[in-house]
């Protein structure tokens, strides 16, 4: 279970325990996200992917354990320290979390104004570029409720990326996107990873794009995690892990039995 220590962990979790009432989500979770790498979190619905990202962002405190972002401890840090840590993070939420009273432009301008204290002409230019990068040109004046689900995802991604954080936490960036857009977003994420050296931590249910992009996978199960490269997990000794990544490896009886039931 214990992942081999990585040379330069950008985000590090040690012995993290978290329970919501009687539901134990993490039970001594250890994992590392290497600097400049692309790591994809996998796991069934409710396995704790979103929760893990919220822990890293300091939005949720674990019951026990340590979480470090770029060497700074997240758990129990003061408001000021937390702000410093969050300045290194960009986070895209599963539901977008765009401010619904503000237009797309104003949403994207928020991190630039509040975090980077940029000036308006620069802000406008940066927003044009970023919206074009996610394929949302011309939506500046729309409100979030006027966007489709996939557009909200992309606007949220643009907002997370626009301040060029060191670490990008993305909760299911590919869900609800058409295949062409998936490729486009994939290319965008690979590019920021390449050119800015941004560390990417994505959660995803989208196996094909995961296998194409990921340097490392982290499969959350039973309160812990199994880490490895895609190849390692595809040939893992545990059949459950292989099945998760490779639909063809699913037990042959599954389709047959479904057919006979209907």
């Amino acid at each position, binding site marked *: 279970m214990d992942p081999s220590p990585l040379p330069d962990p950008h985000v590090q979790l040690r012995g993290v325990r978290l329970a919501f009432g009687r539901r134990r989500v993490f039970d001594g979770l250890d994992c590392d996200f290497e600097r400049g790498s692309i790591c994809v979190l996998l796991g069934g619905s409710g396995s704790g992917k979103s929760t893990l990202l919220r822990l890293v962002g300091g939005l949720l405190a674990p019951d026990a354990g340590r979480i470090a972002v770029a060497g700074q401890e997240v758990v129990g840090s003061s408001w000021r320290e937390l702000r410093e840590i*969050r300045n290194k993070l960009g*986070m895209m939420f599963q539901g977008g979390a765009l401010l*619904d009273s503000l237009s797309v432009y104003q949403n994207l301008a928020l991190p630039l104004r*509040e975090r980077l204290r940029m000036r308006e002409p620069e802000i406008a230019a940066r927003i044009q570029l970023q919206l074009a990068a996610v394929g949302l040109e011309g939506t500046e004046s729309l409100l979030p409720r006027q966007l489709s689900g996939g557009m909200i995802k992309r606007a949220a991604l643009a907002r997370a990326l626009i301040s060029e954080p060191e670490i990008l936490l993305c909760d299911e960036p590919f869900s609800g996107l058409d295949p062409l857009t998936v490729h486009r977003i994939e290319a965008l994420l690979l590019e920021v990873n390449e050119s800015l050296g941004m560390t990417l931590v994505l959660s995803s249910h989208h196996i094909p794009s995961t296998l194409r992009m990921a340097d490392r996978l982290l499969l959350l199960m039973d309160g812990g995690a199994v880490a490895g490269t895609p190849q390692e997990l595809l040939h893992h000794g545990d059949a459950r892990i292989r099945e998760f990544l490779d639909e063809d490896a699913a037990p042959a009886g599954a389709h047959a039995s479904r057919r006979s039931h209907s």
Partner: protein
Amino acid sequence: MARLLQRLGLRCLGIVEQLGRIALFALSLSRAVLSPPARPGRVVQEVFDVGVLSLVIVCISGAAVGMVLGLQGYNTLIRFGAEESLGAVVGLSLIRELGPVLTGLLVTGRAGSAMAAEIATMVATEQLDGLRMMSVDPVHLVAMPKAVAMVVAMPLLSALFIVCAIFGGYVAGVEILGVDSGTYFSSLESSVDFRDDVAGSLLKALVFGVVVGLIATYRGYTSEPTSAGVSASTTATVVVSSVTILVFDYFITALWGV
């Protein structure tokens, strides 16, 4: 018996804890008011929203209350042959008491509940967490402008309520019941003192603005991230603010004589 005492004790502890949390929230709100940026644009927008929401009901209720006061006051005063002091009775009861209190209750129901619901919805849809991750303090960006707007808008709306009500009293007393128009206004003018009555009335409204602004933003901010949480925080805002306004009204009147 012991069980009952225990439950009572727990209940009291819970209330004290809540009060402590509200006090802490009030502290962070006041810190937000003082720390830059001041966000004047957001505050003006929020004052506008509170005003737009409450303007019509405040005017209509004011006029209606004024007319009732005119009728009731006239019927009572005429027994003592004192119907010429109708203006004084209507004006004083409105300015000292009914204006701020009824405006407080109306604005709570209309704008306070909307405020709590809006913030609670932002909690439920992770919008506040999104702000936190962008290193933006949600108290500063979202709660502070709303609370300040409530404090600014309440005295203005209360003044508007009083003006509408005095007009309503005029319609009932002068136009319908035939009190002399000059008498109505001169008795109003001679009995109302600016410092004691008008300034006190505005002060009362200001206090109610603080009460409603604080409770609405606090309940929204601390709501559960579900739709049940949104409705619970809305209801609690109306109930708690209304009761607090009535209780505070007694104490302000008793202590400061307004």
